[in-house]
């Protein structure tokens, strides 16, 4: 067995160890990395910047804790942005866990000093209407009547009694929709059942696994912008000038990607080198 063959037969536990180090070690360092904001994120940010203060933004959180590392930072940075810009937030979920995720993100954001100064109030600056079963049918029903689709908010208050919901009947009264999605129902359903029939303006954040399947809708203009995976989240944080969790994790993400690339190259090199020898 020569060196290359030995290399190929490397115990996978050594590879595992490399990955553990590549992910864990960078977490201890705060490195200021250059994060470029890609056009798809820039477009989303521009669309949001164009909203005048007081605009009503519907946020649909369609994921469960399984996708938290990727989507939770996006939820947090979006809420932070809305409070700073005085945009009114209406939270819903097509997944049962969505509104719960929203609450845990709000808990963090509302305790940040900058936001505390603004002192956003429930019912005036933000509401959480909870979850309703029915997948894409919920979107259709919201097109005709939001208070009927969500008669009560998460804590059991009547939706009509909430100050923020005064005058909100259907998508006509919503200025922007932001969707965080980890699968079905999610961004694709919002495009097909929200954007196409009701002409809503839609921006989305997706897990990286989902993102490539969402790109066709970006290109056709049905989607304003997209945050893809943790990197998308980091770009949004940079674009809004508030680097937070996703930016912090980017160093780990970088190192681990580089390591995977290195593994692919080395593995293939060793494989073809040993094969050639055998062939000769």
């Amino acid at each position, binding site marked *: 067995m020569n060196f290359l063959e030995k290399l190929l037969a490397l115990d996978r536990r050594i590879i*595992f160890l490399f990955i553990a180090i590549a992910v*864990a070690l960078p*977490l201890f360092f705060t490195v200021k990395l250059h994060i470029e904001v890609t056009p798809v994120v820039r477009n989303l940010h521009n669309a949001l910047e164009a909203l005048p203060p007081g605009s009503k933004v519907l946020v649909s959180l369609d994921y469960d804790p399984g996708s938290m590392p*990727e989507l939770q930072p996006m939820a947090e940075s979006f809420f932070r942005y809305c409070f700073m810009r005085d945009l009114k937030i209406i939270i819903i979920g097509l997944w049962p866990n969505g509104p719960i995720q929203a609450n845990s993100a709000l808990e963090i954001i509302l305790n940040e000093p900058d936001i505390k100064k603004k002192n956003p109030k429930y019912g005036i600056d933000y509401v959480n209407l909870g979850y309703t079963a029915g997948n894409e049918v919920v979107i259709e029903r919201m097109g005709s009547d939001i208070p009927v689709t969500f008669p009560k908010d998460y804590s059991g208050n009547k939706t009509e009694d909430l100050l923020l919901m005064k005058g909100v009947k259907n998508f006509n009264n919503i200025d922007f929709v932001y969707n965080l999605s980890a699968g079905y129902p999610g961004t694709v359903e919002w495009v097909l059942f929200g954007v196409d029939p009701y002409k809503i303006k839609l921006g989305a954040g997706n897990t990286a696994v989902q993102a490539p399947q969402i790109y*066709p809708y970006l290109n056709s203009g049905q989607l304003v912008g997209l945050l893809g*995976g943790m990197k998308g989240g980091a770009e949004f944080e940079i674009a809004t000038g508030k680097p937070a969790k996703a930016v912090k*994790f980017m160093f*780990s993400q970088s190192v681990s*990607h580089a390591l995977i690339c290195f593994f692919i190259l080395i593995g293939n090199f060793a494989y073809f080198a040993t094969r050639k020898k055998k062939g000769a």
Partner: protein
Amino acid sequence: MERIGIWIAALLTLGIFSFLYKDNPFYKFCESLFVGISAGYWFVTTFWQVFMPKLADNLVAGRFYYMIGAIFGVLMLLRLFPKIGWLSRWSLALVVGTTAGLYFTRYLVSNGMIQVQNTIIPLYVKGNLSQTIGNLVIVIGTFSGLIYFFFSKEHKGTFGGLAKLGIWFLMLSFGASFGYTVMSRMSLLIGRMDYLLGTWLGLIR
């Protein structure tokens, strides 16, 4: 209570990770717990989020035709009794029919017609070279990709060349998905590591 919970969660996380070194009783324990807990979790969740709202509430509201769901559901359970187990095929047939019926129009529209509609774009955009090239790439890529999936003609000559181009487009897109999937998995691992090192041990902030 919160602190105890964090300790339990951290130990379970380590237990699963221990499998990477080798199979061991600690991992076996965590895995068995996971099997039991997730079955229980889904049992409870479907009860409160499907059973009650979709079946019980509708029956209470007087929509008795929802009994059909209960009947076919019970037929499904007959599988447990070998002698009349074949009756469960009826519920399977209903599920298959529903899936096929719903998928037929759903896929025809959202994956088919809407994608075609979005691909019918001008090949020449006045004064915008990069958009022109981009549109060309999209139309040619979609077209040649479909050629690859064409089964009635052998991939030879010009046709074969287009099919080859199609498969290159497909592979490029698979490469992109590959990269994005790796990104997702790494993010999940970062999330766990952050939990262990930050939330649990407090080593990083």
